């Protein structure tokens, strides 16, 4: 916990409700220091996406609303901004499930990411080339329709597209979803690279606890809309509870599925 000026994002005790009744977040507080990668871990429905959407203000279009608490980004409070205003302020979300523009070419997708910026054609081309340095695979496929590229390539397009908005902060929602382990590793490698070279701060929502903790600096674990546990990524990797519940390792050895179920049943009866 540093002083507020060294943090790009500070969320204090937010509560989020959909349709004014369905409570998705009870009490979530978290901090993203400037230039760091912070992971937000948890199972399906824990509230990871909701947390990200309340930051990017994409919540409003899904009839969700922050009902308590505050979100401070880069020195001011996020209230009634629209997503496009947030993008102009340097906060960009990469939505869950990639969401490429399927009928646009790979390159058009990437260029669309710079929509909020006023760039000359020359500057734009230079930026696109710079992005291709991180995403070499995309350069080969620049003229293909994005809808016909592989899942891994689509995830890369989504991140590349977001980077074209020149974000100070990137919100990544489950970049590993549905991808082969090798591709996941490749994407996380690029994300880490972007973090180090471009200095972009990252809040990463993931179910893949292992790879997220290996790449993040700090992590929060949320369950049913509450922060249950937080700590440096290293400490959480070695935390017995995290190992057992999220990494599937118990007392140094890998749990098999049968044991895990027996374990959880025993816990319930206790």
């Amino acid at each position, binding site marked *: 916990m540093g002083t507020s000026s060294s943090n790009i994002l500070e969320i204090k005790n937010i509560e989020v409700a959909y349709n004014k009744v369905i409570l998705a977040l009870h009490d979530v507080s978290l901090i993203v220091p400037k230039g760091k990668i912070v992971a937000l871990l948890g199972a399906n429905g824990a509230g990871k996406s909701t947390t990200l959407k309340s930051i*990017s203000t*994409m919540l409003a*279009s*899904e*009839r969700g609303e922050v009902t308590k608490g505050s979100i401070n980004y880069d020195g001011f409070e996020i209230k009634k901004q*629209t*997503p*496009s205003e*947030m*993008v*102009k302020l340097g906060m*960009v*979300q*990469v*939505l869950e499930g990639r*969401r*490429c*523009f*399927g*009928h*646009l070419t790979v390159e*058009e*997708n990437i*260029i*669309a*990411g710079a*929509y*909020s910026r006023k760039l000359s054609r020359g500057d734009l081309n230079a930026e696109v080339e710079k992005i291709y340095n991180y995403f070499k695979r995309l350069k080969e496929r620049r003229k293909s*329709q994005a*809808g*016909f590229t592989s*899942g891994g390539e689509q995830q890369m397009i*989504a991140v590349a*597209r*977001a980077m*074209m*908005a020149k974000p100070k902060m990137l919100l990544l929602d489950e970049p590993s979803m549905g991808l082969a382990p090798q591709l996941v590793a490749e994407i996380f490698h690029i994300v880490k690279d972007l973090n180090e070279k471009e200095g972009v701060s990252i809040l990463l929502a993931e179910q893949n606890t292992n790879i997220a903790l290996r790449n993040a600096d700090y992590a929060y674990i949320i369950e049913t809309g509450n922060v249950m546990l937080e700590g440096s990524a290293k400490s959480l990797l070695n935390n017995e509870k995290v190992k057992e519940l999220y990494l599937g390792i118990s007392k140094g050895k890998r749990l098999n599925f049968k044991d895990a179920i027996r374990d959880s049943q025993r816990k319930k009866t206790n």
Partner: protein
Amino acid sequence: MTESILFFFEVLVGGLLSGTMYSLVALGFVLIYKASATFNFAQGAMVFFAVLSFVGFMEYGMPFAVAFVATVFLMILVGMLTERLVLRPLMNQSEDTVLMATIGLGFVLEGLAQAKWGVEVRKLSLGIGDFPIPWIADNLKLFISALDLTAGLVALVMIVLLTLLFKFTKIGLGLRAVADDAGAASSIGIPLKHIMLLVWSAAGVVALVAGMMWGARAGVQFALIELALKALPVLIIGGFSSIPGAIVGGLLVGAVEKVLEVYIGPYFKGGIEAWAPYMLSILFLLYRPEGLFGEKIIRRV
């Protein structure tokens, strides 16, 4: 022999040119479909509303150009109100919901237009006659209506402009992005509000131009709304999301209905003009549902 070939060409060219009128109406549908992925049932009403207002302004004594500009502004206002009162509250709702809303919007526009301007059929003179151009009739022995030819040229200009807009401008890229995935477009900072506003205003202006062409031929009247529904087979044939598709679809519908009417019509005691385009569109739905130029539906499996 040459006589009958010449006659065939005359029928064909006449059909093609009247087809451009369908294309003009279809263009308005395509614009909205590209940005909202919705069939805008109100487009016919917009055509009616626009041209009726235009004629109304002229009756107030406005000169042609002033009335035209005034109507363009009126259609932009309609676009703004539609965005604010209909589309924005329905954001992130299913496409079907928006579709239903456009049906409602259509009734509102029809009602407003008639409440303000009355229900009688108006004449609209563009200073272009709906009769054969003498020079072409004399030299090529083809009878081609001046109005048809003008409509064709106007349609051509609109297509070129809109295609350039979609393909080569930033706002065009934004439009196509929103059409693919509005949520993702908004996540990277494309302001949906502006895009919707632009598209609906553009569709309004296209509706005005289409209405003027049709109004000059058939009179400014309520039946224009039904005429606009001819755009449906045009869109099925051309593809809902394609500007060139709207044009080719319109030409095809125009040509097919005229040629069939003249050559096959007599066996059915005439009147097949009214349903031939729909038959053709059923064939397309069966064998090429995305239309000639429509975007193929991309689905990962």
